[in-house]
């Protein structure tokens, strides 16, 4: 009952010996994710936390441990290279947490990704990751989100923002509504999966019954999502767009969150989503209640 990650996910952590990589690898193991290997060039042969073998290259880690997904904590100068290495090793899913990768690097990564014709999916960069909530052995958390706020269920969440995803999950869990899978696609202007990719998977997943979509100002990803919802989505979608009150031309934290040339405003995105049949929450405090209302009706 999930998309992309679950009990068959075997994770390699790139940058496992760095401070962020080590901290979150431990958290993921604690949550129940099968962390089968780690990679830090030059540290091959070591063992992380006494149980996880560390390799010099992703290819070796895949050969030796059967990893099929990667989580990247490599700092910006080497992060794009780490993504390319993961692609080349044939992983099905690559989740890049790193914030601050130069956009020129990501343009190249994106070009290579397009050449893989769907063999590999990339989530991020600059994202919290992906989680399929569940008990040990069932659930899988790849990323930096706090696992304890989630509970297993039938609502999918997809978001460009990290903490706003936690906010939505917190609201759902407080109402007794569990989640199938939650994906943070990241706030950078050029990255991997976008809303449409996630909605497509949620639409196909029999255990997802409704979706919360959290967008923000800048770009046109929400407008593309609206088109998909109108044409192909049968399941209810509740949405929220952050940044309705942000002034034009000012960058609000995320590199992607900027209103440029009068385009990418919250008003345009809200109108497109409403016209497509999604229900847009009036405030960020109403994301879960808005979805609950349309799922009941």
């Amino acid at each position, binding site marked *: 009952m999930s998309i992309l990650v679950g009990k068959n996910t075997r994770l390699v952590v790139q940058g496992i010996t760095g401070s962020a990589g080590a901290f979150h690898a431990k958290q993921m193991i604690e949550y129940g994710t099968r962390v089968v290997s780690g990679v830090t060039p030059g540290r091959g042969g070591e063992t992380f936390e006494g149980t996880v073998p560390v390799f010099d290259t992703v290819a070796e880690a895949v050969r030796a441990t059967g990893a099929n997904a990667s989580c990247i904590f490599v700092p910006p100068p080497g992060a794009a290279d780490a993504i390319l290495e993961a692609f080349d090793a044939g992983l099905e899913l690559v989740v890049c947490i790193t914030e601050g990768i130069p956009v020129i690097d990501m343009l190249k990564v994106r070009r290579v990704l397009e050449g893989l014709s769907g063999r590999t999916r990339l989530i991020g960069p600059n994202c919290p990751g992906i989680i399929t909530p569940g008990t040990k052995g069932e659930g899988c958390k790849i990323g930096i989100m706090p696992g304890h706020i989630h509970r297993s269920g039938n609502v999918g969440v997809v978001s460009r923002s990290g903490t706003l995803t936690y906010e939505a999950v917190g609201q759902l869990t407080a109402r007794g509504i569990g989640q199938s899978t939650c994906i943070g696609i990241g706030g950078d202007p050029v990255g991997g999966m976008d809303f449409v990719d996630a909605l497509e998977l949620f639409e196909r997943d029999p255990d997802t019954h409704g979706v919360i979509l959290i967008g923000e100002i800048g770009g046109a990803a929400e407008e593309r999502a609206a088109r998909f919802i109108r044409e192909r989505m049968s399941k209810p979608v509740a949405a929220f767009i952050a940044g309705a009150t942000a002034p034009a031309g000012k960058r609000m934290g995320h590199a992607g969150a900027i209103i440029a040339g009068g385009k990418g405003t919250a008003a345009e995105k809200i109108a497109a989503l409403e016209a497509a049949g999604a229900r847009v929450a009036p405030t960020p*405090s109403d994301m879960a209640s808005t979805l609950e209302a349309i799922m009941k009706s």
Partner: protein
Amino acid sequence: MRSPPAHVLACGRRMKIHEYQAKQIFARYGVPVPRGYLATTPDEAETAARKLLQETGQGAVVVKAQIHAGGRGKGGGVKVAKRGAAEARDLSEKMLGMRLVTHQTGPDGQKVRRLYIEQGLDIEREMYLGALVDRDRRRIAVMASTEGGVDIEKVAAETPAKIQTLHVDPAVGLAGYQARALAFGLGLGGKTTLAKFVKALGALYELFTREDCTLCEINPLVLTAAGEIVALDAKVTLDDSAEFRHPEWRSLEDVDEEDPVELEARSAGLNYVSLDGNVGCLVNGAGLAMATMDIIKHFGESRGVAPANFLDVGGGANQEQVTKAFKMILKSPKVRAIFVNIFGGIMKCDVIANGIVAAAKEIGLKVPLVVRLEGTNVELGRKILGESNLAIQAASTMADGAQKVVSAVVV
């Protein structure tokens, strides 16, 4: 000169540099630019003008104010001196120190501290050439228009057919046929001119990728009477994420052009944007910080309550950074109430609580404070705030907090 044009959605930020600095980069890569010198005093301006008149044999020089905003010409920041170096000096005296107001500066304008003295050119035609990261196509877009020297956004809105756009495959780079197509579209048919344009555009693409730009704009790109292609203006925005591989960028920064509060925040590793309202906000995460601004305005707009700032302390902030952030809010005279909204993930609620208490103890808390804590170590965070004896209104949800902070301002 406002950019990017409305029909292409560029990505954010970021670091802006002056025209003369952009032209130095252009020259290094082989994009032709007029000869020019920087001046910060009327004496320097006069010397520069005299040198230019001698070197070029031309009768005129142009005095251009260097500020990080477009629309300088209309605001009186670009003047032509046709009667020699003494006139250039007079113009410089008037321009230096003036507050230049353009459609991009805001009503107070920007103080002119630097001038660029440039050779005058015999202009045959003015065109537009730009490159930027098109986030929706995930490619670098190159744009050209026969309508140069005017507001390109207006051209895009009114006569979009007059702008040609093409996208570059990063695996191949800018292809020759693409550059030629743009040249023919601009009506640059003659063989010599065509070659010159193709060379200049190739250099522009090269510098865009090598120098980590998010935007390069030449408006106008001119064809001179002598058949040369020259970048008369230059606007470059650099991707601040790439700063780690460009140590030379430090010297390009002009702190005079930045908001001092935002500068202070950045040096503390905080993400801060000043706004016009009266509620100080401290939030973790950019999305949640924007949503917090939205919900304050949702409940407060009809009662004159709005956010005074955007502040994202990020996921990995330590107690010192939180203290610094909270002190910045406390010190702002326009803040009449404060809303702290935290959903702890990596960020632990006790770190936030300790930071708030430390800042409030140091400068005192004179306005109402509403705090909503959720997530990692929430119990510990609430306990620290509870035992601090600070007058804090606890909020159970974002909506509850926003309503409480609005009431606190209105009362």
